[in-house]
């Protein structure tokens, strides 16, 4: 419950590519954000964050200067957050890992889509574990196409052979 209370003051801002999280209670007014990038972080404006004010890279660079967890950021494309290194000081996974676990957009909680195509392969889309042979892979927000006709030269994946062979099923 306490966590929910504190989260309720939070704001988040996005430009479609990244989301910047603002946690007012953590701010110590070090003022790096607006000295560095007033176009985005302007305390005299409401809302005080304008994500259109600068490029994504510039915003990330400025958010990373915040000495507290008042400003943090992450990619909207969840898959890209995995690869973020520790040089990105204020990425949420280092500062506010609770925000990483939050089900967001089309990631966690969304059922995987399995489509049996008309006389074609099985298309599997979403987040899932793929196992074949000794290989085990985590597929994130992506899709695979599995052969159903038994004739693909790139088993277990579809290579389009079903069309040449006139597969029906």
């Amino acid at each position, binding site marked *: 419950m306490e*966590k*929910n209370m504190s*989260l*309720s003051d939070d704001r988040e801002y996005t430009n479609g590519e990244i989301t910047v999280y603002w946690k007012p209670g953590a701010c110590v007014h070090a003022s790096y954000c607006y000295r560095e990038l007033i176009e985005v972080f302007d305390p005299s404006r409401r809302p005080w964050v304008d994500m259109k004010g600068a490029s994504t890279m510039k915003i990330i660079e400025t958010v990373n200067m915040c000495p507290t967890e008042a400003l943090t950021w992450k990619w909207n494309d*969840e898959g890209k957050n995995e690869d973020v290194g520790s040089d990105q000081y204020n990425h949420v996974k280092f500062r506010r890992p609770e925000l990483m*676990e*939050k*089900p967001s957009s089309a*990631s*966690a*909680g969304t*059922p*995987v*889509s*399995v*489509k*049996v*195509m*008309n*006389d074609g392969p*099985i298309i*599997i889309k*979403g*987040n*899932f*574990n*793929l*196992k*074949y*042979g000794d290989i085990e892979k*985590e*597929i*994130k927000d992506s899709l*695979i196409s*599995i*052969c*159903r*006709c*038994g*004739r693909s030269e790139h088993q*277990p994946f579809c290579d389009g052979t079903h069309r040449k062979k006139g*597969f029906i*099923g």
Partner: protein
Amino acid sequence: MEKEENKPSEAIVEVITGGPLRISGNFILKDLKRGDESTPGEIWLCRCGKSSNKPYCDGSHRNK
């Protein structure tokens, strides 16, 4: 802000060597050929093209 205990991967897709495709977990199956949609929880889909119960495996791959 309800937090759910969801893991990033909730479904498992397993290619069984010499056999069908096993899918289990949180997924929706849409069969465009037969117009079916279901959430079966676990299925075995034919990969050899020989099943007479497509899209499901009926063991025909063994009789090749």
